[in-house]
C-alpha cells in the first residue's frame, strides 16, 4: 500500500487548488496528460472574472520532452513553463545547488533551471548550455531538492517555454486558488459552467480519477501479500517441522523426564520467533537496500543521494510493521510444529527405533 500512498501524495503539488485543463485532458494527480491547449490570456481572464478566485497561475506542463533530440519517457522528465513572478508557487523555498546561479528573470530569453537528478544524469552543471527543440538554453541553476518531480524537471519562464515548444500564447494548465470562504468544489463548478472548453478538477476529483487504478493496484497488492503470507507460513512451518522431527528424541526425552507441556511449546515457539527476528532484520536490511536501488534506477538519483533519506523511502513505521508481521508469521508457523513436539512420547520414539 506504500506506493499507492506515495502516488496520492503527489497531489500536494497543487494542494488546495483547482486545476483547470482543456476538456479531454487526463490528469494523473498533478500531471496533465494529452488533451489540448488553452488560450492563455482568454482563459486566464475568464477565470479571474469568476467570483471567488484569489489567484491564477497559467502553466505549460509538458511530459517526456525531447532533450538533445531524444525523447526519454522513463525515467520521466517534465518541462514546466511558469510566469517568473510566481516561481514560488511550484518550487517553494527550494534552493539552488551550492547556492550557485539564479532563477531566470522575465526578460531572460534562454535561461532555465534544472532538477538535480536530470542534471546529474546528463552531466549538466551551472552554465551548461543544452539544446531543446533546436533552442540553445543555458542552465543558470540546479534545483537542490529531494522531490522526485522537481528532480526530473526543466523549469523556465512561461514565455520561453511557449517559444521553445511552439505553443505561442497557450498553456495546458491553469491553477486556481479559491478566495477565503469559497470551496474548491463550488469554484470548479462555476468555472465549468462559465467556460465551456475547460474541465476544472478539485483536489478530491484528481484523487478520485486515479482511484480505480490505485484500487486495482491495491487488489493486486493484497493478492500478492496473501500469497507471500501463505508461502512464508508454509516455509516456516516446513523448516520448523523439519527441525522438530530431527530432534524428536530430544523432545521425547524432555517429555519422559517430566518437562511441562508449556516448556516444550515455548522452546519451539521461541525458535520460530527467532527465525522471524533474524529473517525479519535481514529482510528489512536487504529489502530497504533493494528498494533504494530500484528507486535510484527509476529516478536516476544516485543511491548515495537517496541513502540519507532511506527512512523516507521505507518509513520506520512501515519497517516496524513489516518486522512485526514477519515475526508474527513465524510464530504462527511454529504453532503446529510446537504442538507436534509437545505431543512426542518416549514410548513412541523407542518403539519406532527398535
Amino acid at each position, binding site marked *: 500500500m506504500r506506493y499507492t500512498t506515495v502516488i496520492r501524495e503527489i497531489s500536494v503539488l497543487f494542494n488546495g487548488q483547482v486545476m483547470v485543463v482543456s476538456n479531454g485532458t487526463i490528469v494523473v494527480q498533478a500531471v496533465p496528460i494529452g488533451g489540448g491547449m488553452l488560450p492563455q490570456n482568454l482563459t486566464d481572464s475568464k477565470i479571474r472574472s469568476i467570483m471567488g478566485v484569489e489567484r491564477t497561475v497559467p502553466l505549460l506542463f509538458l511530459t517526456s520532452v525531447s532533450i538533445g533530440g531524444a525523447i526519454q519517457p522513463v525515467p520521466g522528465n517534465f518541462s514546466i513553463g511558469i510566469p517568473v513572478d510566481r516561481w514560488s508557487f511550484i518550487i517553494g523555498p527550494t534552493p539552488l545547488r551550492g547556492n550557485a546561479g539564479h532563477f531566470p528573470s522575465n526578460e531572460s530569453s534562454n535561461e532555465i533551471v534544472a532538477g538535480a537528478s536530470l542534471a546529474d544524469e546528463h552531466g549538466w552543471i551551472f552554465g551548461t548550455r543544452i539544446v531543446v527543440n533546436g533552442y540553445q538554453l543555458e542552465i543558470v541553476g540546479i534545483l537542490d531538492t529531494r522531490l522526485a518531480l522537481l528532480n526530473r524537471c526543466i523549469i523556465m519562464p512561461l514565455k520561453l517555454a511557449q517559444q521553445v515548444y511552439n505553443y505561442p500564447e497557450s498553456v495546458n494548465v491553469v491553477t486556481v486558488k479559491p478566495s477565503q470562504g469559497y470551496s474548491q468544489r463550488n469554484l470548479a463548478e462555476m468555472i465549468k459552467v462559465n467556460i465551456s472548453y475547460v474541465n476544472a478538477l478539485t483536489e478530491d476529483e484528481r484523487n478520485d480519477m486515479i482511484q480505480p487504478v490505485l484500487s486495482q493496484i491495491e487488489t493486486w497488492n493484497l493478492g500478492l501479500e496473501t500469497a507471500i503470507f501463505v508461502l512464508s507460513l508454509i516455509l516456516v512451518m516446513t523448516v520448523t517441522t523439519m527441525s522438530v522431527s530431527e530432534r524428536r528424541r530430544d523432545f521425547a526425552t524432555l517429555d519422559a523426564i517430566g518437562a511441562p507441556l508449556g516448556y516444550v511449546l515455548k522452546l519451539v515457539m521461541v525458535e520460530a520467533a527467532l527465525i522471524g527476528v533474524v529473517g525479519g532484520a535481514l529482510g528489512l536490511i536487504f529489502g530497504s537496500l533493494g528498494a533504494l536501488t530500484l528507486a535510484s534506477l527509476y529516478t536516476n538519483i544516485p543511491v548515495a543521494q537517496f541513502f540519507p533519506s532511506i527512512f523516507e523511502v521505507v518509513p520506520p513505521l512501515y519497517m516496524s510493521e513489516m518486522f512485526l508481521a514477519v515475526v508474527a508469521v513465524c510464530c504462527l508457523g511454529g504453532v503446529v510444529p510446537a504442538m507436534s513436539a509437545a505431543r512426542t*512420547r518416549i514410548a513412541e520414539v523407542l518403539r519406532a527405533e527398535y
Partner: protein
Amino acid sequence: MKIKAEELTRRFRVGSSEIVAVDRVNFEIDEPKFIAIVGRSGSGKSTLLNLIGLNDSPNFGKILIDDADTSLLSSSQRREIRLLRMGFVFQTFNLFPTLNALENVELPMALAGKPRDLQRKKATTLLEVVGLGNRLPHRPKQLSMGEMQRVAVARAMANNPEIIIADEPTGELDSGTAKEIITLLHDINKKDRKLVIMATHDERIIGIADAIYTIQDGRVRLD
C-alpha cells in the same frame, strides 16, 4: 514409593495384527530394591518400564503408586511424578547434544524450578559422584559412551527421585563399562536407598539384583 501393577496389559496394532506386549502383569514393589527385568528383545521389557514410568498408558489394568490409581491422574500430574519422583536412564543415553554435562544434569532441576545456584552445586556434586568431576563443560559428543551413561545416571538422580528406571542402560556399552554402570546403579540402590528397576540382557545382574522378573511374550514371572 510403593508401586503396584494390577492386570497390566498393553497391546499394539501393527498392520492388521495385534501384538500383546504386556499381558495381564501383576506385581507389587514397596521397598527400595534392585529389581531386574530380563527377557529377550521384543519380549516387552521396555513397554513394561514405560508403563511403570507413566510414559505410556495400559489398554487394560492399572499402575498404582502409593495406592493411587495413576490412570486417574491428569497429564500434568503424571509429568510431575516423572519429574520429581522418578529418574530415567535410557539405553541410548538421550542426553541433549547442545548442552554440556553439567547443563544436562541441571536440566531436571531447572524444570522443577529449583534455584540456579542449587542446580549448579548439586549437578557438580552428582557428576563428581559418578566420577566425572573433570568433565563438567564437555558436551556429549566429547564424552565416551560410558561417560555419557554416567551423565545420564547423574541426570536421573538430579531431583532426588524415589525410583530409578533404567531401560537397558548397558546395551550400548562394552563389558567393562557395563560393569561400572551396573555397580553405579547398585550403589545408588544400596547407599541412597532408591528403588532401581532395570531392564537388561546382562547376565551379571543375576548375582546383584534383589529380584528378577523374567518377561516372555508379555507375561512376567518372578524368579
